């Protein structure tokens, strides 16, 4: 089976889905599930034909391990999130269009990951940007989709510029070859490196391009947020990967100033990654909206992935690639659970929720496992990847970046706990007395993703084998696994054993617990209130400003946001000025301006 067949099949299926959706949108939504499942299966089959070249009209593709890896992550996220689509069809303004865009963006990502030349890469990239822009504005706010589009467009335009620059120098569009022409031209290489990376950075939401992410993720339709955060953000990681592998940044800058063995340009990008870890963490802690909180956590985790991939070595690279998967899964899970809570209660504001565990225990458990992974606590997937990154950083001695990584990883503990406590735990408000658990259909993706998280956490081998393949493809040292043990220069990790010992400890605790007298169940309101009486559950639910003292410490608005605001105000002002100049109520003024403009054109032509 060739890649082109797959692509055409999927396109055909998405058109079918659109047509079905026009007739019955709910059925169409089920079609999205089927189509993404088909995609998943087809992709899985494609694993055997890695190395295959394919082309259709001006698009050329190459099946690479890394492309396969990225697209698998993407499809898994799309597939699982698709299970939510049927439940949101009623709320959509254009359900049929939503279904179409959902699938087209999926195809776009796949095409992009397998692209062999710049044009293919760019066009498929743009497909994803456009479709997702349309989807985002079906959500809460239009403004966020503008911001999303503007940031994406700036990124892609600048990247396009870099591609053209490379084309001018090398005369070829093929990604793997074109960059070779840059050797020996350090200044040009520098320009290309930064401009090319820009699209990636803006997509993964690295500081200072992170502003769009919480806006878009926070206000996108609940069904699309998991895709955005779990999937689309990772497109940026792919660009980062190209910049270190095909572009061979380490060799290109080998003569430049190095910091701890890292060339300065790469180090700068890594520092940006580190900053986004800190900024993302601090901002996530401050949020009240659960979706925005998770979106900021995506910013922070994007920093980890970027740092890991940019280090491009045996350890941290594997960590970055693994983190891509574990974070994609964990954050998709978290967004899905929040989406389900929003579906049942109608809000994602944490201060308005509470006590959901008594109504949705399964959703709670799923969210719990997702955040354990997100916070990087064993025995879940997030721990392995963070461990690899931290070990890699220690190997290189990158102190400041490691400091940011530690901050992010302990800070993540704070922000992931916040929704846990405010949404699921605490007092149940009487108005939520009739909330029901997620339906079976919604539970399916949660189960799938949870099992995946656990599997990665306990048997990271499954993924690490593929990553070793990528590392082989990229020509760096492969990650070594002995049995279940990851063996690296400065440490070993046997996740299976950690899991077993944790289970052992848990068992001992459980036995002691069961041996003791059974506890009496009391209501939530029968609690310590300094012996005073209170009868309003909402008044006992501590959820808003959860980390008030910490929030106060980080209260000062950081300058970049201000800058953005100022720029946007200035642009608006210029726009108003132009408007006032040209659309004056007096026709004479308008005519005057038209004459001036014509005069300039005329003069320009003459001269």
């Amino acid at each position: 089976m060739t890649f082109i067949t797959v692509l055409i099949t999927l396109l055909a299926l998405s058109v079918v889905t659109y047509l079905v959706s026009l007739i019955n949108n709910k059925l169409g939504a089920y079609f999205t599930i089927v189509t993404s499942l088909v995609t998943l299966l087809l992709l899985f089959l494609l694993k055997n034909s890695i190395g295959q070249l394919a082309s259709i009209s001006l698009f050329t593709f190459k099946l690479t391990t890394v492309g396969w890896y990225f697209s698998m992550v993407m499809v898994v996220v799309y597939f699982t999130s698709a299970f939510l689509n049927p439940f949101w069809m009623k709320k959509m303004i254009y359900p049929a269009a939503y279904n179409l865009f959902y699938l087209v963006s999926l195809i776009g990502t796949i095409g992009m990951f397998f692209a062999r030349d710049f044009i293919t890469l760019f066009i498929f990239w743009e497909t994803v940007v456009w479709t997702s822009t349309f989807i985002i504005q079906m959500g809460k706010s239009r403004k966020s989709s503008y911001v999303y589009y503007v940031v994406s467009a700036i990124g892609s335009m600048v990247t396009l510029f870099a591609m053209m620059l490379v084309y001018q120098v090398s005369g070829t569009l093929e990604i793997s070859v074109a960059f070779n022409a840059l050797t020996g031209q350090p200044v040009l290489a520098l320009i290309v490196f930064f401009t090319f990376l820009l699209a990636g950075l803006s997509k993964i939401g690295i500081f200072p391009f992170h502003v769009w992410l919480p806006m878009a993720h926070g206000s996108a339709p609940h069904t699309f947020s998991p895709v955005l955060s779990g999937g689309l953000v990772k497109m940026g990681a792919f660009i980062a990967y190209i910049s270190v592998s095909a572009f061979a940044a380490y060799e290109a800058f080998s003569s430049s100033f190095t910091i701890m063995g890292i060339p300065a340009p790469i180090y700068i990008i890594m520092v940006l990654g580190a900053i986004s870890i800190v900024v993302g963490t601090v901002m996530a802690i401050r949020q009240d909206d659960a979706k925005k909180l998770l979106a900021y956590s995506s910013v922070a985790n994007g920093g980890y992935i970027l740092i890991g991939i940019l280090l491009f070595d045996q350890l941290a690279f594997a960590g970055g690639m693994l983190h891509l998967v574990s974070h994609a899964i964990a954050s998709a899970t978290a967004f899905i659970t929040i989406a389900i809570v929003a579906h049942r209660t109608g809000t994602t504001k944490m201060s308005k929720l509470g006590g959901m565990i008594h109504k949705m225990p399964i959703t709670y458990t799923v969210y719990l496992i997702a955040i354990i992974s997100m916070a990087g606590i064993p025995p879940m997937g997030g721990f392995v990847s963070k461990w690899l990154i931290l070990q890699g950083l220690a190997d290189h001695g990158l102190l400041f970046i490691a400091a940011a990584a530690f901050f992010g990883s302990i800070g993540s503990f704070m922000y992931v706990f916040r929704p846990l406590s405010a949404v699921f735990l605490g007092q149940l408000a009487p108005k939520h007395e009739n909330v029901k658990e997620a339906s079976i259909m919604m539970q399916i993706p949660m189960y799938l993703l949870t099992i995946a998280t656990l599997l990665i956490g306990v048997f990271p081998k499954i993924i690490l084998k593929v990553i070793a393949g990528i590392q082989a493809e990229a020509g760096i040292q492969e990650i070594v696994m002995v049995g279940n043990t990851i063996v690296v220069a400065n440490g070993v990790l046997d996740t299976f054993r950690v899991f077993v010992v944790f289970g052992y400890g848990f068992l001992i605790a459980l036995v002691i617990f069961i041996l003791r007298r059974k506890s009496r169940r009391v209501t939530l309101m029968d609690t310590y209130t300094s012996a005073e009486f209170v009868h309003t559950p909402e008044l006992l639910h501590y959820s808003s400003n959860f980390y008030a003292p910490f929030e106060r410490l980080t209260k000062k608005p950081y300058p970049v946001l201000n800058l953005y605001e100022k720029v946007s105000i200035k642009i608006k002002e210029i726009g108003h000025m132009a408007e006032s100049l040209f659309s004056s109520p007096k026709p004479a003024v308008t005519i005057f301006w038209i004459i001036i403009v014509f005069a300039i054109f005329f003069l320009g032509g003459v001269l």
Partner: protein
Amino acid sequence: MVLENQDNRNLWEKIGDYFSANSIWMKWYCTGCGAIELPPTMTSRFDMERLGMGPMATPRQADVMLITGYLSTKTLRRVIYSYEQMQDPKYIVAFGSCTINGGVYYDSYATINQLDKYIPVDLYIAGCMPRPEAVMNAFADLISMIKKGQANGWRHYQENYEWYKKNQLDSLEEVIIHDEFHE
């Protein structure tokens, strides 16, 4: 003096009572003026911790509740609520004459006269107010009572719950009041 000499406890209960006797945590609740003698009892001079006693912040953690003197009806509601939140086995030590028969406030419209109608009292300390020495002595008595399995107020409360509830409601009308009286 002792009414119940028969000891029905099994070995585990005896061991449990040994632990309970030697580690008594009191609830941090100054219900009345006798509480002014608690700081000296707790601190360096008399050092309650010698007996394994210490203050604890909340009713769930505490073993013993000290009713340090007179109880106004307003406090009694909190005391009952707070007592019911404590975990078994739990004990009550009542300080001073006010808890026994009302003391100097025998004709007050705000204070109750006889505490053991409302909650089971394991031990009374006479005096107004009991000196730290008396308090320490009472604690020692309480310890020996627990060791012998005689401090069974909590069991008595469970068994005669209706009787206690009736008395409480007679005097208080409502134990867990519902009007948010300050707002």
